[in-house]
């Protein structure tokens, strides 16, 4: 059936014809509408108001957005930090997820499950920040300071998380260490569902080593997972906040660790300016949607 013919059938008949499909998606989309769509839309509306959660919202129009973009210097700094974090950690994390998933897929049996656990550990153990606090302690007993002093690189201990220039690089390192999360597990699962006969066929067709196999067979076969991983990576990299708050505090020294979401939490959670926080969330949303468009276009070219 061509596309044109499809449009000629009245919508009602089409819906009646596909009622099984609609019945199957109904429970999910009912819940999704109530607990996701409605809250998101109301947040977008709230972003056009002044709302302190105590009195009724007061209409502001574009006021919050104008203030954000024209008057709020810290927001601009946070935006800059977020872009640096996202541009550096996003692609690197993504490639690391893929690389480690692919390597782990070369092993098998219990060793494979064990390796998966080890590499997923920072995401699952819940206390991952504590270890970095011990490593980065600002006196000479901190692991990093201790080692650098012993090896003669430093004379005096450095207050790592209280020095403006070190905050962002440290956040990048910790974020990379934490990167093997959702995308990583999705890739592991994706590698499992690839039809194994594809590899035999490829070997006959002249694929010589594992790198060629990766580019010409494995990656094209797991495109849907690559797309999923990319969206997860974008939502993760642009929303970095927890590690910044845990390691550098909020506000951090000179706002060196400020990101869009720490700024949002500052206004939403501390100052009770929900309208302003919602405006930040909406801008972040637009930023992610734009990036996603770009990335999906790049991903379509995998394996060509």
């Amino acid at each position, binding site marked *: 059936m061509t596309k044109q013919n499809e449009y000629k059938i009245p919508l009602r008949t089409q819906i009646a014809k596909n009622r099984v499909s609609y019945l199957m998606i109904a429970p*999910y989309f009912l819940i999704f509408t*109530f607990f996701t769509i409605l809250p998101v839309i109301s947040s977008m509306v709230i972003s056009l108001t002044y709302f302190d959660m105590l009195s009724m919202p007061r209409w502001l129009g574009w006021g919050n957005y104008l203030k954000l973009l024209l008057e709020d210097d810290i927001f601009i700094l946070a935006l800059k930090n977020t872009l640096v974090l996202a541009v550096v950690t996003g692609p690197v994390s993504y490639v690391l997820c893929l690389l480690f998933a692919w390597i782990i897929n070369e092993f098998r049996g219990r060793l494979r499950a064990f390796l998966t656990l080890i590499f997923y550990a920072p995401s699952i153990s819940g206390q991952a920040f504590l270890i970095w606090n011990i490593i980065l302690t600002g006196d000479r007993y901190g692991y990093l300071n201790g080692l650098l002093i012993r090896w003669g690189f430093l004379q005096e201990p450095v207050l790592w998380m209280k020095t403006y220039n070190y905050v962002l690089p440290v956040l990048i390192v910790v974020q990379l260490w934490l990167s093997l999360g959702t995308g990583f597990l999705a890739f592991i699962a994706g590698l499992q569902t690839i039809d194994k006969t594809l590899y035999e066929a490829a070997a006959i067709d002249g694929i010589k080593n594992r790198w060629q196999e990766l580019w010409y067979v494995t990656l094209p076969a797991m495109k849907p997972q690559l797309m999923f991983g990319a969206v997860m990576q974008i939502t993760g990299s642009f929303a970095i906040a927890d590690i910044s708050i845990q390691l550098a505090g909020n506000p951090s020294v000179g706002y060196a660790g400020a990101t869009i979401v720490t700024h949002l939490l500052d206004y939403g959670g501390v100052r009770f300016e929900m309208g302003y926080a919602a405006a930040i969330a909406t801008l972040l949303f637009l930023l992610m949607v734009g990036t996603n468009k770009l990335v999906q276009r790049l991903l379509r070219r995998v394996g060509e």
Partner: protein
Amino acid sequence: MVSGKPMVIIEKETLRERLFPRRSKLNRSRAGNALLFTFMAICGVFMALPLVMIVNNALKPLDEIYQFPPRIFVRYPTFENFTDLFVQMSGTWVPFSRYILNTIIITGGGTVGHVIIASFAAYPLAKHKFPGKTFLFTLVILSLMFTWQVTQIPNYVIISYLGINNTHLALIIPAWGYGIGLYLMKQFMEQIPDSLIESARIDGASEMRVFWLIIMPNVKPAWLTLAIFQFNLMWGNTGYLFIRSEELKPLQFAMQQIMAGGPARAGEAAAVAFVLAAIPITFFLLCQSSILETMTTSGIKE
């Protein structure tokens, strides 16, 4: 592999074949394997640090927890922290088993429900043609990009309006509609060849039968992975926003109360951290190994 003695040959397969999958004979060099193994071992040490620290902390006596400078490894391991925790657990106002039951209901309900409902919706989106399909799917992906902290207040209003505030349902039902599950399942289901579904339909299978007998078995790695994600999310939920009755609160909440007990309770807090991590890890290992059992040999085939 590099040991001096001749390797013990097991009748079916050598050690090398046990460590690496059978297809290692195809396009795999021995040097490459060795290189990868070394690389993984070095990286693994760094990644395993949090696990090492949780286990060691839980076994430290109180003076070692406060030892300065801090050490990662325990010197005189003890189970004191766990016995202390046990004593404290038996003395709570609400019986501790009640917290455990609440957590089983919340985590179990949220995980099983989400996997089933999201998979149910993912199948038509991946394999059927109907008006509105692309629009609905795009909505789900877009929703993943909106900061969830901001939607908490509208969510609270809606949950109160539906009259499920201060019940387990306030935590369970919204979890069924998370975007991640639908997206993940749809991506995997897309890969199932249409011919497989077509042949089942020709044999007279209803869409329900196709879903349970063809689709779900073929995407088993996907729903096991989704179960891991959702389990972790639900497990970490303290429910502080919606649940006020003490006898409805989950284990996570009670455990955090113990963790907030101050310096004298630091030992118990370390034991709590161990328990809170051990259960998701056990679940993770169970799911990961059953992904392996079913899928190592086949993959999705026509």
